[in-house]
């Protein structure tokens, strides 16, 4: 194959188990100026190894930033980051299929496939499989690797027993898990940001941009529950796995994804870097995350095979209230 994708620093290929930090794709409809500044700061200041770009949630948002991506990618690469281009999670209609086909033509770029149109067009060349693709078992994992997957970001819903089994079956592939940020729970053809504002998707006025960390959805009792981001429904809680990262590394996870929010993501990355380096412990990391992100509720339930909204307290580990 003539295409060279997935250029990694040699130290990484020499030691595939070395843990790396990943800045996931921005899921929200942030203003172009803000997004440009965000990536500039990530390039210059954030201690992360990999940065995802691209629109994952809604094709209608693409025209606002499409022409900016080449500069953003160049800047990130110049800063020594590996750049991954993430594809749409829900692909419908010829125009969106065309977007996927075009992405597959991008040379020298690692593409993260987030649906089976992308899996189909990327088959046979090195690519990444994103967490929106259902990899629940070894048979599916093996298939993806044989078809060219070099990195797999596992679905958020998986319990630790499944993660351990999958990592044990993973050969010649890097394994990734999200450890910080709201968890994508569902995607729809219907835009719930528009619907909450009395609009339809076709005339949405891009109201999803008004709630840059997602629109809070509470129960009628006033309890926080979910967050809406256009077509996507996210967890009301923020996933936070600092207490589990050592075990995940042991199991074979070697990339840890931080999902961007409006809080100081450079500071968030620093916390997880210090945790990975053994300079702070999990409880200190969690306190630091709460200090940086402000008024958020943490959860880790999926990993512990309890409701995803719950916070499981690991026995013997002191954890802040």
């Amino acid at each position, binding site marked *: 194959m003539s295409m060279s994708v997935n250029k990694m620093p040699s130290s990484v290929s020499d030691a595939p188990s070395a843990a790396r930090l990943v800045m996931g794709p921005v899921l929200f409809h942030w203003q172009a100026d803000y997004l440009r500044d965000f990536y500039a700061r990530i390039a210059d200041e954030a201690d992360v190894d990999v940065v995802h770009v691209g629109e994952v949630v809604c094709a209608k948002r693409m025209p606002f930033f499409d022409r900016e991506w080449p500069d953003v990618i160049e800047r990130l690469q110049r800063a020594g980051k590996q750049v991954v281009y993430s594809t749409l999670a829900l692909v419908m*209609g010829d125009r969106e299929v065309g977007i996927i086909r075009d992405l597959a033509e991008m040379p020298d770029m690692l593409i993260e496939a987030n649906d089976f149109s992308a899996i189909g067009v990327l088959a046979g060349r090195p690519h990444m499989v994103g967490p929106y693709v259902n990899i629940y078992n*070894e*048979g599916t994992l093996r298939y993806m690797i044989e078809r060219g997957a070099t990195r797999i970001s596992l679905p958020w819903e998986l319990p630790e027993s499944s993660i351990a089994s999958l990592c044990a079956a993973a050969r010649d592939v890097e394994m990734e898990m999200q450890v910080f940020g709201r*968890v994508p*729970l569902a995607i729809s053809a219907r835009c*719930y940001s528009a619907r909450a504002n009395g609009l339809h998707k076709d005339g949405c006025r891009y109201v999803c941009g008004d709630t840059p960390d997602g629109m809070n959805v509470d129960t009628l009792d006033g309890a926080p529950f979910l967050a809406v981001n256009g077509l996507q429904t996210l967890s009301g809680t923020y996933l936070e796995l600092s207490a589990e990262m050592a075990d995940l590394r042991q199991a074979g996870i070697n990339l840890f994804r931080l999902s961007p929010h409006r809080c100081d993501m450079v500071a968030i990355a620093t916390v997880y870097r210090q945790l990975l380096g053994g300079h702070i412990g999990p409880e200190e990391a969690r306190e630091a995350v709460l200090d940086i992100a402000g008024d958020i509720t943490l959860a880790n*339930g999926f990993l512990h095979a*309890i409701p*995803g909204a719950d916070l499981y307290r690991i026995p013997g580990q002191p954890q802040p209230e």
Partner: protein
Amino acid sequence: MELVCPAGTPASFRAAVEAGADVVYCGFRDETNARNFPGLNFSRAELATETEFAHARGTHVYLACNTYPTAGKEALWHKAVDDAVAIGVDAIILADIGLLRYTRDRHPNARLHLSVQASASNVEAIRFYHREFGVRRVVLPRVLSLDEIANLNRQIGVETEVFAFGGMCVMAEGRCSLSSYATGESPNMNGVCSPAHHVHYEERGDATVSRLGDFTINVYGASETVGYPTLCKGRFRAMGKAGYLFEEPTSLDVTSMLPELEAAGVTALKIEGRQRGKAYISQVVGSFRRALDQIAAGHGATTSRLSHMTEGQSDTTGAYRRNWQ
């Protein structure tokens, strides 16, 4: 168009056959299918008996094995596929890539259908499943409009099946973890959504509160009919307003658009409801049988007489009409 009808029990199975189903689909009694409810579904012996019953009357049988096998436990799903082939069902409905490959390799002559849980919503995804696993039919996700379905059918070489009646997911199926977020159990992993053993009802003065896990899904006033707390059909508060943020408690009913679906190139219509009783199955299947026979006789579309069978006594054509989005 072929009429594909649900059965959760042998009694419902026979009711569907007698009401005019072209096909009955069902699952084994475990987490290999997406309607893994207590007291539902079929043992191997039951499926063998009912398949014989159906085949003697010219009715086909599809086996749904459409959850995602758990890591380390794939053998349970492999056995389900092997047994379905041995029993002689006419097609197997699958969603998971690993299981599709297993079935293709072990049973190259089996007819494979792609479950709605695989969420193949575009031409490239459908071509992928066809090319890789020889999938002959795709059950389309309930996110596509009629125009998008017609456009797909012009480009793909496989049959399409669409949902015609019953409960309606508003999220892309097979890609939704809302249920496990609230309860720890999900359609993909456990074959259940908003499972009954996590449901509670509370009286609060005149109001009734429905809860799923730790979350209030709806609060009903004294004059309102209390419904089941399916998570995405609940009432929530956002932007300072309370309401049905995702979808009203409503059911899908495409009776009025059958000629349009036929013109769009759709091969089969699926009735949802393996959890429903025999009387429900008889009425819904009978109604669609008459509507399809009337169209075949050149009489055009009919209006639905099924509004009393729908959730909240309200129905929708869902994503098939673009303004739903």
